[in-house]
């Protein structure tokens, strides 16, 4: 497949390997991310997909090293430009945050400081990272607001967050995260808190800015429609582990992990309306009670003693397609569509 060759040919800008993060709770140590490994390549959009609580956001915050107590990163490495972000001194890490790697947050309403006008919040990024004069920072902030489609820049700069609509606030946040033209943008569910019409605009904006500035995007989402629309490759997460990574076409055409298959089957189809949607039986285990073997074993129709005994490693089954399942060949047989 030509498309897949393209993906693998690009150079990696961020290499996450065996990243593990846990939270210390009263009930014991709760793993939030276990040995997550994936690669983000230059100029691509990688979707990190999974349901609530599976560790998507914790993965993103771990990459940025913003995990706070009671959470802690217990192992792995995050290679960026030949350096491991997890062992950088805090000073250098601060220079990377917002400057080389930036984040767009889920809630545009709460991600802006309510007591300062928009302008000063965007300017702060320039003043902090680029040592600009206020006048220049102001000019650059206004330019960036234009870039994200806010044309009435003077008014927006003076406005307080509560005076803007949700869509405008998300545009402001995007402007802030792109202020220093970072190499990587981590977008943590950027459209979850926004209504559907504006959602499409924001996604279009992210796509446009990505091609303007040529950065790589790690798009965190639980919405498969957005992922299909936006991403080049997808990493599936389930209960703290990455279970499948694949180019987006391969994931939707030949999903090879039972969980991915289950998810795809539970999307309502317009070809077969008014039919009962198949469910994945059972519930996601609680983090302190994760089973020894495959975390999905308790809900999987194909589960055997082998699944419950040992955790399947993430193995490559095709070009750019990796799966963590002992029975992937059987799953692949029952391909979707």
């Amino acid at each position, binding site marked *: 497949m030509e498309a897949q060759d393209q993906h693998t040919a690009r150079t990696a800008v961020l290499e996450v390997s065996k990243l593990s993060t846990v939270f210390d709770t009263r009930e014991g140590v709760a793993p939030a991310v276990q040995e997550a490994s994936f690669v983000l390549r230059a100029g691509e959009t990688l979707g990190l997909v999974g349901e609530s609580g599976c560790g998507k956001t914790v993965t993103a*915050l771990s990459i*940025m090293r*913003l995990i706070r*107590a009671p959470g802690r990163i217990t192992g792995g490495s995050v290679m960026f430009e030949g350096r491991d972000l997890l062992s950088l001194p805090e000073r250098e890490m*601060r*220079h*990377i*945050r*917002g*400057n080389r790697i*930036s*984040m767009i*947050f*889920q*809630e545009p309403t*709460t*991600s*802006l*400081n*309510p*007591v*300062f006008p928009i302008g000063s919040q965007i300017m*702060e*990024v320039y003043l*902090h*990272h680029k040592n600009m004069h206020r006048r220049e920072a102001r000019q650059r902030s206004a330019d960036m607001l234009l870039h994200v489609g806010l044309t009435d820049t003077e008014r927006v700069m003076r406005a307080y967050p509560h005076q803007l609509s949700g869509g405008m606030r998300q545009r402001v*946040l995007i402007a*802030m*995260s792109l202020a220093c033209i970072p190499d990587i943008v981590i977008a943590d569910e950027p459209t979850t808190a926004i209504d559907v019409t504006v959602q499409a605009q924001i996604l279009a904006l992210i796509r446009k800015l990505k091609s303007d500035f040529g950065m790589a995007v790690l798009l965190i989402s639980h919405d498969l429609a957005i992922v299909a629309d936006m991403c080049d490759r997808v990493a599936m997460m389930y209960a703290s582990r990455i279970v499948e990574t694949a180019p987006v076409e391969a994931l939707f055409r030949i999903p090879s992990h039972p969980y991915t298959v289950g998810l795809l089957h539970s999307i309502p189809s317009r070809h077969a309306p008014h039919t009962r949607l198949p469910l994945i039986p059972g519930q996601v285990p609680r983090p302190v009670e994760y089973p020894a073997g495959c975390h999905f074993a308790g809900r999987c129709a194909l589960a055997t003693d082998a699944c419950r005994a040992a955790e399947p490693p993430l193995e490559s089954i095709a070009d750019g397609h990796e799966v963590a399942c002992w029975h992937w060949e059987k799953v692949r047989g029952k391909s979707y569509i």
Partner: protein
Amino acid sequence: MTQYRPPLARLQAVRLRDERVAPVTAVLAGHHSDREADILRLLRSNAVLLRDSRADLLFVDAVVEGQGCPDLSPRASTRGGCRSRNSADRHPGDYLVTRTFPLGTDAYGRDVLSRMMYGSRVSLSLGIIAVLLSVTLGVMAGLGAGYFGRATDAILMRLADVLLAFPSLFLILIVVAVFEKLPIPRIFLIVIVLGLSSWMGIARLVRSEVQSIREREFITAAQAAGLGHLRILLRHILPNVLTPVIVNATLRIGGMILIEAALSYLNLGVQAPTASWGNIIYEGKDALVRAWWISAFPGLAIVLTVVSFNLIGDGLRDAFDPMLKDA
């Protein structure tokens, strides 16, 4: 009780000579020995010296350098009223309430209204400065404890618990008694002790606010933008916790004024002849039955001031609270 004539009150009398020659002459004629008269003559010939000694006398003048009171108040705060004739004989006629002295005079014939006006400077500035000090300390401790958590939090908050366990009035009494010999005015000592012993409430308030603000997404966003701890604390967290602090600080000013009054009433506060509301009440307590106004009016002033600050605090709280705005 022997007759007591404070020497400086007599100097005031001398100053009066320029304005009203006749009554002063009468005063001088009645009370002074030759030696004192010589001194007075010397002072009279040296008006500058006289003014200097007055400035020393009025501590508040030296500290605040306020100009309002001398113009406003009918009489200098420590100056004897000429009609009271400087006597402390304690017969009823000595405590006057006249048109000249609308709130009466005290044992030294000083105008109570004037002393209250001067005393207001001491009481108000002491209250405000002590609150500023305690707010500064409390905000710093609260920010540190709330933001960094863990060991910082544990140490600062246990320290606060320990300090809260001391009854603060007794703490102040002890400190004043111990450090009395130091060459600093007692009022500074009181301000410092009040500030150091009252920051814990503000620290707890700020800490709890910081703990909730810290979890808000815009703080994570600020960290993700690469800002350092200090910048996040001062620029993103502090402005968001300031509202309850301002309200709380306003409410505390009244309490500080009360503590000062209590100390002065125990004669451990601001020292005579500097006037503060507390020590005017203290000075009036001996003549409470015959000259109730000496204690009553400063007391009323304290009540009104404390109530006012509480009302301002409540008003600020309502003004800042977005939930109540529409109601």
